[in-house]
């Protein structure tokens, strides 16, 4: 049987994929740290690309007792370092 997929995740699906509680995620969406499409939590949709960033934020918060804003900043910096390294590997 062939399986197709939806590139968007609901709040519940993202929570399960990233191992976070709905309250944790809701707080960070409302704080502008995680981007969601839609106005109400019930209709929020998340780009399936965001799972890695959410996991990273969770690890930085729990591992370092970091404030959510700092964890989001570090996760963004990790993404940027990874992006620059990919370019460096290609262009030297």
């Amino acid at each position, binding site marked *: 049987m062939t399986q197709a*997929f939806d590139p968007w*995740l609901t709040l519940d699906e993202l929570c399960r994929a990233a191992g976070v509680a709905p309250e944790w995620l809701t707080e960070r969406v409302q704080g502008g740290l995680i981007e969601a499409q839609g106005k109400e939590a019930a209709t929020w949709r998340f780009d399936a690309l965001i799972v890695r960033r959410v996991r990273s934020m969770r690890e*930085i918060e729990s591992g370092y*007792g970091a404030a959510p804003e700092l964890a989001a900043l570090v996760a963004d910096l*990790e993404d940027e370092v990874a992006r620059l390294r990919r370019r460096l590997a*290609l262009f030297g």
Partner: protein
Amino acid sequence: VDFKDYYGVLGLPREASAEEVKKAYRKLARKYHPDVSKERDAAARMAEVNEAHAVLGDAERRAAYDAVGQRWQQGGAPPPDWDAGFEFQGRGDAHGGFGGFESHGEYSDFFEQLFGRTGAWRQHGRTSRGAAHGGAGPGHAARGADHHAKIVLDLEQALAGSLTEISLRVPQRDATGHPTLAERRLEVRIPAGVRPGQMIRLAGQGEAGIGGAAAGDLFLEVHIRPHPRFAIDGTDLVAELPVAPWEAALGGVVPVVMPDGKELKVRVPAGAQSGRVLSVRGKGLPGAAAGVAPGDLQLKVRVVLPSGLDPRARKLYEAMAEQLDDFDARKVARAEAERGEGGER
């Protein structure tokens, strides 16, 4: 399966407090974070540190690990039922870890045997699902656990989409109730435009539900194999564009062979220097969903000089040296840098 000494990894005694575990983890994470560490095996050490912290930093997992470790070390070898009494469950929270960007879900066999691929566990009798193996009560229903796995695609598959058969190791229990890993094949339609790190959720492809409840989902994390000429940057496709000196100086139309083998004609403007980035709109990754714009193709110009060992080229270089004797490459480059024209544009 080799026993993992997580206390040894973090350099801690077995009686270390939760605070000491946290401190040791932070110290080692800073030492081995692959983005900052100078150690050659930093990524592997960071993965070990993350795994140790995922166990010792979680009170429930630590208790399970301590129980197993005590029996293992007393006998000097794994007891026959060392991993019995634990049940797999999709909690999804053991993937990754700080600095473990490239090792999401890459935990040791020891960890996976004890805690499952998703790193979550429950002891029999502690939860309603634990009761399922001892005989669930009538009317009991529970949604199946989610499963997590990695799928590795070629760049061509990500660009064009594909129908891919994947093979998964799925945790199951054998006749004696011990967890084992069984192979399962699944055909997945990969849409064009899928990107590295994207999570593909296959509804109902996780663990079967109990008592008529829904099955869990299967989450596949997309990885793209490195391509020798192209890289993905967001939705853009990035590559180098080698050009001859006269193509760069005079401008012209040059061919670019795309990953699918098709040729794209690209106009190089006159005076293009090495490092200049040319964008071709809409020729990057296709939009993965309706309404998502495709990315661009970004080509970084690299002027490739004919070898001075070739007598024809040598003659031309000598003529240029003679006739362009007021050309100072250092001066030109300095002026460009001052105007902010150096490097990528």
